């Protein structure tokens, strides 16, 4: 890795925006890994479309974080020149694609949250975040519809698809709690009306998820213990591998364009 990482001044609003930008970039990158590998052409296109939605969200959020920070960083530097410990995304989103069921369950858990989150954020008193929310909400509304339909068909499909979908739910469940957690730096933004309290979305999220999972003849684990760490840069081993691919070009050929 030839290019050193940038320094980021993580004031509460910069950190908050970077966390959401990292969510979108990392999940978008995961989905893009399916390009050319999906089980059928139709889903190849669907996954790539959603990856591009997320990449678009990431770009807007990174640009806003750069503007708020005002230290000469930009969307590319945030994406390409931060190491694993500087990334702030949810652990759920960096989990490997696994099989198609695993990708769909990850997508479903997150989209069910993101749809509620962006809808609530449209009322943010920060006009830029509210505008990004208004655009992202329409995208996440489709992501939740798309993944819900697949969860139902995988769960209520064949014995094999049911088995795989249930394994994915069991494996990823412990990563869902992090979506609703906040820390002190976010508390201030919530009090100021800039951010929303994700805990307020949990009941509706659980209702949506439970209904779809039940229609799919699948079940949610009873486990209460939840994995955390992504928001403060403590990641699973998978993120480093993802970043080494995502960043290899800019790290090797700094500033390369084409």
């Amino acid at each position, binding site marked *: 890795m030839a290019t050193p990482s940038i320094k980021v001044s993580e004031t509460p609003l910069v950190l908050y925006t970077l966390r959401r930008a990292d969510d979108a970039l990392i999940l978008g990158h995961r989905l893009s890994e399916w390009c050319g590998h999906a089980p059928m052409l139709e889903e190849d296109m669907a996954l790539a*479309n959603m990856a591009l939605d997320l990449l678009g969200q990431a770009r807007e959020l990174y640009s806003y974080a750069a503007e708020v920070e005002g230290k000469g960083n930009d969307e590319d530097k945030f994406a390409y020149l931060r190491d694993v410990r500087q990334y702030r995304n949810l652990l759920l989103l960096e989990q490997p694609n696994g099989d198609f069921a695993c990708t769909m369950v990850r997508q479903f858990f997150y989209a069910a949250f993101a749809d509620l989150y962006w809808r609530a954020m449209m009322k943010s008193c920060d006009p830029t975040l509210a505008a990004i929310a208004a655009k992202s909400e329409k995208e996440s509304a*489709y992501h939740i*519809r798309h993944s819900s339909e697949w969860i139902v*068909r995988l769960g209520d499909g064949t014995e094999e698809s049911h088995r795989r979908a249930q394994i994915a739910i069991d494996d990823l469940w412990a990563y869902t709690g992090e979506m609703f957690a906040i820390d002190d730096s976010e508390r201030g933004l919530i009090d100021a009306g800039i951010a929303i309290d994700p805990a307020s979305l949990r009941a509706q999220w659980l209702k949506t998820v439970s209904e779809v999972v039940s229609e799919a003849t699948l079940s949610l684990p009873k486990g209460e213990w939840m994995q955390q760490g992504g928001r403060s840069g403590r990641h699973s081993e998978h993120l480093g591998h993802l970043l080494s691919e995502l960043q290899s070009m800019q790290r090797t050929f700094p500033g390369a364009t084409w």
Partner: protein
Amino acid sequence: MATPNTPLWEVFIRSRNGLAHKHVGSLHANDATMALQAARDIYTRRGEGLSIWVVPSNAITASDPSEKGMMFEPAESKIYRHPTFYDVPEEVGHM
């Protein structure tokens, strides 16, 4: 790849209000709901559509190409069916 689980669907897109739905292609999907989603993802990525129809391909009854003589040639010699023999008064302008 046609499998019994993913039959073929024909996709029709209406691009603007006032226009008819137009056939744009086909795709494979498990059922009507998934076909509609796939149609959205494949055929409206560049803002092509305001409305989508999907129809099971096997619901379409097609004319037999070997009967095209009987079906279509008789119309070829009846040019008087085209409304091109009327004088349109100047005042009407473009119709």
